[in-house]
């Protein structure tokens, strides 16, 4: 069968790869370059330390990188993950954390050399694991530890009161100030408010533009497939307050819009579209290719859209658009306090991952349904992720809702960062059944990438 659409590789893809490797390189060299090296989680308001010359080892993507090692070097992966188990951490705990702890306990940095020594941990807790994760890390490393408490907004349909929202803003703002003073005290370095303000602006730009990129993917044929999206969204996860990342997303958006204009497809055979939820099994992304052999392209996931995206709810249309940045709203940031307020409000009102963890019910269902409609989705694939119970929140309810609505839905149990809990043969078999139930025929034989 000949191709339905023309396709072409994404030009900015290599640049994305370089920026990512640079960031990990900077982490390895942070010490000799005299920078602070900070450990923490991806949702940790990573713009806060922008006021210092620093590098940040962000836990979740680092865990994912370890899981990916399984492909080339299963023995090394097993050593790492079992080091955490032998230390007594049960196997049903967050797989990112277990991989991270294993690498720390073995003193093996996955990009080479010993595990870089952190100056302190700065973390923000929004799921049950994060604040304990870095408590354990700082105990093992005997380093100072600060953890913000992030209490997210409820979903808009819950009709949370303005006073409650203000309380949540204030709670985070005062903790941001607390954190900055604590960091200055612990590190003995002075905090540069100008850099901090810039970091916050970049954070807003990066995430807002990422949302625009996701929205561009509503086009048929889709300019991006999820496998590509996953290698782009990660930059925001590890470096959204950085200038190079903010600039990269603007460049990326331009190219994606150009692809839309010229009907350049990610999958030349696109005949049906799916979205997924929760992180994928990072070491086994091949299943996306199996879908493509049936002409099925995954156009995104609530997870990758939300974790790197700034989304603004439109109460009239009852849908989500790319959030308008402070610049676009004409808000000026002059002081540390301004920046803290903007950062807190941005995180609370435009992030949808954390509220999905705390409030998974009607709100998360509404968001998924909105994606199904706006991205022209024919089927939904839910990864029941044994490795991350936070992103698994509400998934079974979503499955029920989709069934009621008559949208084909498939679930598969797996783990985003522990290959021992992902059964590829059985998952492929389920995908084949799913394709059969969607009445889709395989277009070409699927060969597993080496």
């Amino acid at each position: 069968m000949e191709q339905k659409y023309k396709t072409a590789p994404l030009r900015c893809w290599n640049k994305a790869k370089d920026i990512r490797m640079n960031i990990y390189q900077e982490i390895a060299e942070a010490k000799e370059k005299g920078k602070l090296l900070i450990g923490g989680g991806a949702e940790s308001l990573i713009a806060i330390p922008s006021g210092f010359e620093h590098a940040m080892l962000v836990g979740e993507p680092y865990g994912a990188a370890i899981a990916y090692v399984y492909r080339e070097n299963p023995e090394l992966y097993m050593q790492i993950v079992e080091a955490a188990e032998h230390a007594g951490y049960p196997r049903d705990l967050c797989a990112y954390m277990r991989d991270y702890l294993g690498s720390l306990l073995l003193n093996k940095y996955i990009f080479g050399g010993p595990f870089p020594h952190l100056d302190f941990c700065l973390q923000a807790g929004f799921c049950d694991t994060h604040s304990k994760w870095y408590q354990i890390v700082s105990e093992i490393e005997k380093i100072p530890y600060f953890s913000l408490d992030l209490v997210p907004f409820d979903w808009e349909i819950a009709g949370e009161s303005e006073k409650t929202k203000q309380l949540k803003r204030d709670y985070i703002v005062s903790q941001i100030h607390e954190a900055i003073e604590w960091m200055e005290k612990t590190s003995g370095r002075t905090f540069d408010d100008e850099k901090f303000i810039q970091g916050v602006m970049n954070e807003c730009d990066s995430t807002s533009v990422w949302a625009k990129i996701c929205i561009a993917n509503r086009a048929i044929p889709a300019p991006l497939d999820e496998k590509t999206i996953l290698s782009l969204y990660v930059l925001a996860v590890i470096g959204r307050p950085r200038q190079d990342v903010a600039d990269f997303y603007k460049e990326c958006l331009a190219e994606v819009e150009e692809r839309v204009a010229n009907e350049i497809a990610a999958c030349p055979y696109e005949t049906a579209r799916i979205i997924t939820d929760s992180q994928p099994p990072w070491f086994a992304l091949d299943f996306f290719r199996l879908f493509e052999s049936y002409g099925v392209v995954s156009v995104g996931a609530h997870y990758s859209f939300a974790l790197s995206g700034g989304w603004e709810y439109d109460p009239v249309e009852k849908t989500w658009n790319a959030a308008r940045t402070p610049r676009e709203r004409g808000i000026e940031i002059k002081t540390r306090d301004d920046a803290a307020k903007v950062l807190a409000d941005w995180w609370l009102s435009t992030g949808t991952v954390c509220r999905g963890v705390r409030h998974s019910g009607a709100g998360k269902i509404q968001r998924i349904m909105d994606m199904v409609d706006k991205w022209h989705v024919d089927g939904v694939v839910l990864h029941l992720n044994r490795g991350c119970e936070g992103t698994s929140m509400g998934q079974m309810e979503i499955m029920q809702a989709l069934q009621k609505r008559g949208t084909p839905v498939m679930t598969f149990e797996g783990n985003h960062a522990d290959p021992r809990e992902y059964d590829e043969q059985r998952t492929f078999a389920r995908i084949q059944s799913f394709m059969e139930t969607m009445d889709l025929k395989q277009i070409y034989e699927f060969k597993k990438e080496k």
Partner: protein
Amino acid sequence: MIKDFVDIYQNRHAYAKEWKRKHPDSKVVGYMCSYLPEELFYAAGLLPVRILGSHEPQNVTEPYVFGMYCPFSRDVLAQGLQGRYDYIDAVATAYPCMHLGQAFDSWTIHVTQKYFYVDMPNRVQTPYAFPFLAGRLEETKREIEEWIGKEISASDLKTAIEVYNENRSLLRQIYELRKAEDVPLTGTECMHITTANLFMDKKDANKLLKDTIEKELSGRKAKTADDSRLMIVGSENDDIKFLEMVERFSAVIVNDDHCTGSRYFWNNVEMENGAIESIARRYLARPVCPQRDYPERLRLPHLLQMAKDWGAQGIIFLQQKFCDPHELDKVAILNFFKEQGIPTLYLELDVTVPLGQFRIRVEALLEQLREDDIW
């Protein structure tokens, strides 16, 4: 009397329905986490009842809850889906943990639409948690007033606080009695009391507690000095069957750190100028649940103090299968007690307990504790 508590534990729903019959123009609120400030609801003339599982195998929750979530959260939701709490008018919780949070979300979708949600902060160790929680409780108070259509007066609050403080002090008294060499009541009996108390109007409970202390427990010897003294630590636990099994041996459970046990009542509300503020301070200062125990580990000294004061020779760490918060504390706690030279046993609770597999572990622990006997 103890048997009354046993009766209420077994017929919890009958009790609540009877209460509703006696208070026709009042409402019942089912709640899911011990961090919920019950005083606010009680002050409004409502009856807060804790929602607990029934320890029966079930699969009605299967369509709504991911298999990795703890058996307790599933068991809790199952009660709602099976209509056992059909008499409650609203469901409430303070932010508990993800698994119980899922049970709560599903409950509001399939069982009880009217709900109250309190954003209980996790970082109880920062001074900024106080203004946040206090403000949040003011909001909750307002939401309750809107619901029942009348104001909660300062004196309502004051009385509620007094009733709950008395309840806590009485339970504390009973725990004090367990320090004795010949313990006046078994851990099983005590668990019946503390758990039944969760379903009761605290005015009734206080009467019953007083009677039990004065008329039944004084001079009573349920266990003797030869029995090994154990403390149980962990997540939600009202697993009577397990405690019965343990205490059938020459052993007695003398104290606990469970949210349905000591964590529920350990500290009182210290009345300051504002009632709401005082309540907020109490919930921030109470013995923590693991996910709120950071950056400092405040649980460790607290647990050790309890073990010392109640003369616990061994500790059974009982945790709901898949309970992340407790699994995240497990390593630190087990290592800590190892350094203290206090033997521990780590067990995972499920909806029903595999007694066959647990018995031998418990027996082996007890053999370990009995220096003189077989060694």
